[in-house]
C-alpha cells in the first residue's frame, strides 16, 4: 500500500512546502503593504522632512489637525462630493439597469456603451471633460446656449450653487454657510458619475437578473401594476445589491483625487480651494514642496478611520443579507 502512504504523506501538514509557495507573495505584501500600513500610524507621530524622520513629536500633528481650517474644509468638501456622487450615481444606474432589464433588443450594445468610460483612464477622462467645461469654448456651454441658457464658468466657478441659485432668483444676500458646494465641485461630480455609472449599472443588472421571474408572473396574475411590482418585489429583493453599490461607491468617492487634481488643481485645489478634497489635501501636504509627510499621515489616518467604518458596515450588511 505504498500509494496510500504516499497519499497520506502528501495530504498531511507540510508547513515547509507551503512556506515556499507563500514566500514570494508574502514578502511583497509584508514589506510593501503591511509595513507601510503599520508605519502610517508611526509616521503620523513624527516630524518628517524630505522623506526622513526628524523626531518624535507625539500627538502634535493631531492637535494641529483639529484646529486646521483647511483640513476641516477639505473634509466638508469631500462630504459634499460624496453626497453629490453617491445618490446621483445610484439613482441613474438603477434607472438604466431597470430599463435594460425590460427584455430589450441589443442589450449588449447598451451595456458596452455605458461601461466604456470605466475602461478609460481617469486622466484622459479628466482632460477631455476639462475641455468640455471650458468657459468660453466648451461644448457644454454651447449646448446650454443652444437650449437658451446662460453660459457658466464651471470648473472656474468658486461660488456655491445655492448662492448662485439665490442670486439668479434675485436675492441680494445669502448666508455664506449655506452657499453649498461650488459649481466647480458640481462639475467634478458630474464627471465622476459619468465615469463610474457603467460599473454600477452592471452590478445592478446582475442583481435584477437574479430575481426569479415567478415573482413577477405571480404579481401580474394578481393584477399588480408595474409600480407596485417595483416597490414590492424588485426593490426589497435588490436590497443586498443596492447596499453593496451604495457602500462601494461611497468608499471610492471618499478617495477621489485624480479628477480633482487634473481638472481643478494645482496650484490651489480648485477656484479658491473649493474643490480641495481630503486626498488632494493629503497629497499637497505630503508631496508638494515644503510638505510634511508626518502631517499628511495624520490626514491619511482620518481618511482611513472613515473608510474602515464604512467597510465594516459593508461586511456586517452583507452578512445580514439586507433582505426585508
Amino acid at each position, binding site marked *: 500500500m505504498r500509494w496510500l502512504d504516499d497519499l497520506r504523506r502528501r495530504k498531511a501538514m507540510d508547513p515547509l512546502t*507551503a512556506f515556499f509557495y507563500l514566500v514570494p*507573495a508574502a514578502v511583497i505584501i509584508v514589506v*510593501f503593504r503591511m*509595513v507601510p500600513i503599520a508605519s502610517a500610524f508611526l509616521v503620523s507621530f513624527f516630524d518628517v522632512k524630505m522623506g526622513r524622520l526628524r523626531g518624535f513629536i507625539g500627538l502634535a500633528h493631531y492637535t494641529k489637525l483639529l484646529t486646521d481650517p483647511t483640513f476641516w474644509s477639505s473634509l466638508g468638501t469631500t462630504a459634499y462630493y460624496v453626497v453629490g456622487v453617491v445618490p446621483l450615481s445610484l439613482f441613474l444606474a438603477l434607472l438604466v439597469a431597470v430599463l435594460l432589464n425590460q427584455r*430589450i433588443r441589443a442589450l449588449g450594445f447598451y451595456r*458596452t456603451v*455605458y461601461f466604456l468610460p470605466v*475602461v478609460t483612464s481617469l486622466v484622459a477622462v479628466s482632460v477631455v471633460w476639462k475641455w468640455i467645461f471650458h468657459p468660453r469654448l466648451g461644448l457644454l456651454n*454651447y449646448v446650454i446656449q443652444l437650449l437658451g441658457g446662460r453660459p457658466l464658468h464651471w470648473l472656474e466657478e468658486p461660488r456655491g450653487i445655492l448662492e448662485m441659485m439665490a442670486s439668479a432668483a434675485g436675492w441680494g444676500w445669502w448666508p455664506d454657510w449655506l452657499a453649498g458646494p461650488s459649481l466647480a465641485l458640481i462639475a467634478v461630480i458630474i464627471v465622476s458619475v459619468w465615469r463610474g455609472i457603467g460599473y454600477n449599472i452592471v452590478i445592478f443588472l446582475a442583481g435584477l437578473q437574479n430575481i426569479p421571474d415567478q415573482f413577477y408572473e405571480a404579481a401580474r396574475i394578481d393584477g399588480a401594476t408595474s409600480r407596485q411590482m417595483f416597490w414590492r418585489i424588485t426593490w426589497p429583493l435588490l436590497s443586498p445589491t443596492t447596499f453593496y453599490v451604495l457602500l462601494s461607491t461611497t468608499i471610492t468617492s471618499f478617495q477621489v483625487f485624480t479628477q480633482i*487634481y487634473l481638472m481643478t488643481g494645482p496650484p490651489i485645489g480648485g477656484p479658491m480651494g473649493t474643490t480641495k478634497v481630503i486626498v488632494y489635501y493629503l497629497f499637497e501636504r505630503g508631496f508638494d514642496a515644503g510638505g510634511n509627510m508626518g502631517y499628511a499621515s495624520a490626514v491619511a489616518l482620518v481618511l482611513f478611520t472613515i473608510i474602515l467604518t464604512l467597510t465594516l458596515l459593508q461586511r456586517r450588511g452583507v452578512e445580514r443579507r439586507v433582505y426585508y
Partner: protein
Amino acid sequence: MGATATIRGASFYRAQRAGSRVALYAGLWIGVIVMVVPFFWMVATSLKSPIEILEFPPTWIPTGQFAKTASGAWEEVYVASRDRDAGTVAVRSAAGGPARVLPASDVRSSVRLRFSNYAAAWRQAPFARYYLNTVFIVLCTLAGQLVTSALAAYAFARMRFPGRDVIFLLFLSMMMVPEPVYIVPSYIILAKLGWINTYQAMIVPWLAYIFNIFMLRQHFKTIPDDLYDAAIIDGCSRFAFLWRVVLPLSKAVLAAVVIFTVVSTWNSFLWPLVMTNTPDVRPLQVGLARFAQEQGTNHELMMAAAVFSIAPLVVAYFFAQKQIIQSLATSGIKG
C-alpha cells in the same frame, strides 16, 4: 359584448405598451448620447486646426476652408474676415503669405481631418518613452502577479499548515486599506531603498496583489479533492498538479486576473505620480497629465494625446467587452 371588450382591452394595452417601449428606448438613447458625446468630442477636437478650436459656436465635424487658386486647384486657407455685403472673403494661405480677398464663391468649406495633430502631440512630449514605460511596467507587474498569486492561492486552497486561515484573513484585511493611506510611508520606504524615480518603485510593490490571491483561491477550492488524490496516486507532484491540472482548469479566472491587472496598472495614476519625477521612467498616465498641464491652450494636441493614451484599452475592450466588463465588475475596481 364580453368578447369586444376583451379585444378593445388588448389593443389598448398593446398601444400603452408600445408607448412605454418608445419611452424606454428614448431614455436609453439619451443615456447613450451622454456617454458617447465626450468621446466623439475628444476625437473631433483632436482632428481640428488650432484656429478651428477657437471657433464659437464650435463645429461638430472638423472642417477646413479651401480657396480656388489661379490654376483652378483648391488650396487650404484660413479665413481672416468675411464681408457679407460685398460677398467677399479675406483669406490667408495655410502655408503662409499675405492675405488676399476672394469672392465668396471661390471659398468653400469641407471636412478636413488633421491626423497630423497626432504626430505633433507625439513629438511634443516623449510619448514613445511613456508608452514603453507603461508597457514594460504592465508586463512585469502582470507576470509577477500571476506567479505570486497562483502559488500563494494554491497554498491557501490546497495545503495544510499552522496559521493558514489567520494569515489569509490578515491578508484580506489589508485589502480594506485604501492606497492614499499607505502612500506616504511607502514613499519613505522606497526613498530609503533609493528607488524613487525607478521602475522598481512602480513594479515591485505591486508584484503581489491580495485580491488576485483571493480570487484564485476561491476558484482553486472548487476543484474537487478526488482529482487531487487521483493525481497524487498517479505520482503527480504538488507543483505538477498546480501546473497541469489546476491552472488549465482556471482559465476563466486567470483571464479575469489578467484583465484586472492590466487595466488597473495601465490606468494607475496617484502612485506613479508620487514615485516619479522625470520623464525617463514616467508612465503614460502621468505623462499625459503633465502634457495637459503644460500645453495650456493646445486643446487639439491634448485630445490627440488623450486618444492615443486610451486607444489600446478601448480597442481591447471592443474585442472582449463581455469578459472585460465581467472581470472588472467582480473585482470591484473603479478607477
